[in-house]
């Protein structure tokens, strides 16, 4: 878990500590003026969720439906002008998880296609097992691509508006908003802590170099850093609250009403949902 921690996703490990940059580059939003950037965030979120739901609902081995799903996600990537390479590179994030499904090749019962023995055990691969694993990997792959396009073409405030439109509790949306506001500030603080540790030789990543004490010692130092980060955030939270209170905050989260969805937006939602339904019907028919 936390294998894909933010820092690792975006920068090679040895550069985290060295870099003096601020971490705003973590934000995956790519500014642009593509049709997808201009699309109402509410429509985008609803359709992205519908697409992922469709991918999840298609039964295992419905290859025809998978091709359609892939065609859709590919055309949306082209529409978004993000560059297909960018999306595909990020889409590899989900790959480690396929490991969890891999044993299914041997455990799903069906037509055996190959077998090998390892010590006392005999493993036999089945056609159904292979089909199942490939299906899971594929569904997960197209879903993550859609999520990447959504995050890369929608600013966070727009996502917050979509959350409001989807009737998430106001308080939760406000907390999300505040979290996003301070995420980069605190990520900077975490980087400063890491840099301070590196400067004091607390940990070397080079294999064979001194690592600075036993594993327990290293863990304790990191724990101290975490505690330090929390103390600073508590104090920051207090200051933010004081500043908000000074400006008249009374615990009530007030927002401007969102403009109603126009006919065009409704049409797009309707068209998108229809396409999803058609794919599900096709999948149902061919796997029957």
């Amino acid at each position, binding site marked *: 878990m936390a294998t894909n921690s933010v820092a690792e996703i975006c920068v090679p490990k040895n550069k985290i500590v060295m870099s003096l940059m601020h971490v705003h580059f973590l934000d995956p939003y790519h500014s642009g003026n593509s049709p997808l950037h201009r699309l109402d965030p509410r429509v985008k979120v609803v359709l992205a969720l519908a697409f992922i739901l469709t991918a999840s609902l298609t039964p295992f081995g419905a290859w025809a439906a998978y091709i359609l799903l892939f065609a859709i996600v590919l055309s949306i990537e082209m529409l978004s002008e993000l560059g297909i390479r960018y999306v595909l590179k990020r889409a590899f994030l989900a790959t480690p998880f396929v490991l969890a499904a891999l044993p299914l090749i041997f455990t799903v019962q069906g037509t055996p296609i190959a077998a090998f023995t390892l010590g006392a055990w005999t493993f036999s691969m089945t056609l159904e097992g292979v089909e199942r694993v490939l299906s899971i990997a594929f569904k997960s792959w197209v879903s993550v691509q859609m999520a990447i396009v959504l995050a890369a073409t929608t600013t966070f405030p727009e996502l917050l508006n979509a959350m409001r439109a989807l009737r998430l509790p106001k308080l939760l949306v406000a907390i999300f908003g505040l979290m996003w506001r301070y995420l980069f500030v605190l*990520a900077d603080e975490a980087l400063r802590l890491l840099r301070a540790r590196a400067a004091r030789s607390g940990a070397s990543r080079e294999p064979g170099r001194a690592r600075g004490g036993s594993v327990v010692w290293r863990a304790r130092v990191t724990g101290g850093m975490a505690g330090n980060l929390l103390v600073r955030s508590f104090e920051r939270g207090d200051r933010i609250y004081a500043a908000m209170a000074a400006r008249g905050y009374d615990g009530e989260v007030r927002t401007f009403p969102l403009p109603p969805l126009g006919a065009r937006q409704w049409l797009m939602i309707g068209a998108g949902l229809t396409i999803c339904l058609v794919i599900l019907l096709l999948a149902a028919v061919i796997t029957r």
Partner: protein
Amino acid sequence: MLSAPFSPPAMHIPDGFLSVLVAAALWVATIIVVARALRRASADLGERQVPMMGVLAAAIFAGQMLNFPVAGGTSGHLLGAALATILMGPWAAVIIMTCVIGVQGLIFQDGGLLAMGANIFNMGIVGVAVTHFVYRSARALAGRRPWGIFLGGFLSAWLGVILSALITALELAVSGTAPANLAIPAMGSVHILIGLGEGLITLGALAFLYFTRPDLLKIGEAKPAGRAAWVAGLVIAILIAIASPLASSFPDGLEWVAQQQGFLTNAQNAPYQVIPDYVFPGVENQALATIIAGVVGVLTVFGVALGIAYMRRKQGDANLMQT
């Protein structure tokens, strides 16, 4: 990820790994608990809630960047569910973890969108409830003595991670995307090790706080609100502890059990029962359907590409006209 050393399978479930039934059920459970947590935290924190929860969620998120090398290129990470629970109490911790996991899934694709309910449930609800139960129990056993804080902190963080991993494996097994007899022991044993890292970091953080800001350790304690959460933690811990070995003892995995009960087959077919025996005209054949889908797919992509090219040209023309 770019220079990723060996990293064990993550606990953030991506989309495509959960059956829709499991994902939906866990979304419902998550929504109920988070709604309750919002009300409870509102009562506890009042108008401080939004700034405090927001900043602490950001802190836990940023805190996950903190790691330490263990051996052979692996490293220990902080997850933070335990620290949030110990410092802020279970209800606030549920909200903090919901925000952390929400941003991880929505922005960084660390965990899926449809699977987000499950991810919040596993790490934000099970993890928090178990941590709360273990930590509170250790504190009660220790009386006023400080070893309750440290031992309780370490054990609760460790067990929270392990039980979160076990419930994740159980969900995958029920979804038929990982064989129970392999996934549960594998996830369990890997996270027994990962959880040690979490436990040690949590212990270090608590030691730091104990000596510098002992007042912060009392915030989570001041409220009697934790009784229900303590019971919930106990019940969840017992259920997972019973279900995991039971499930993994089925040689064919949980899915086999589910199929015997007929519920998986129902779940898989349910959306399609509306149109029994419906056949598209001329598409009875699977190979033919695949070909048709392929052609339609290629045409879709081609059409969209053409459309974009056309639109751009028109835009270019318009720009030319303006100048």
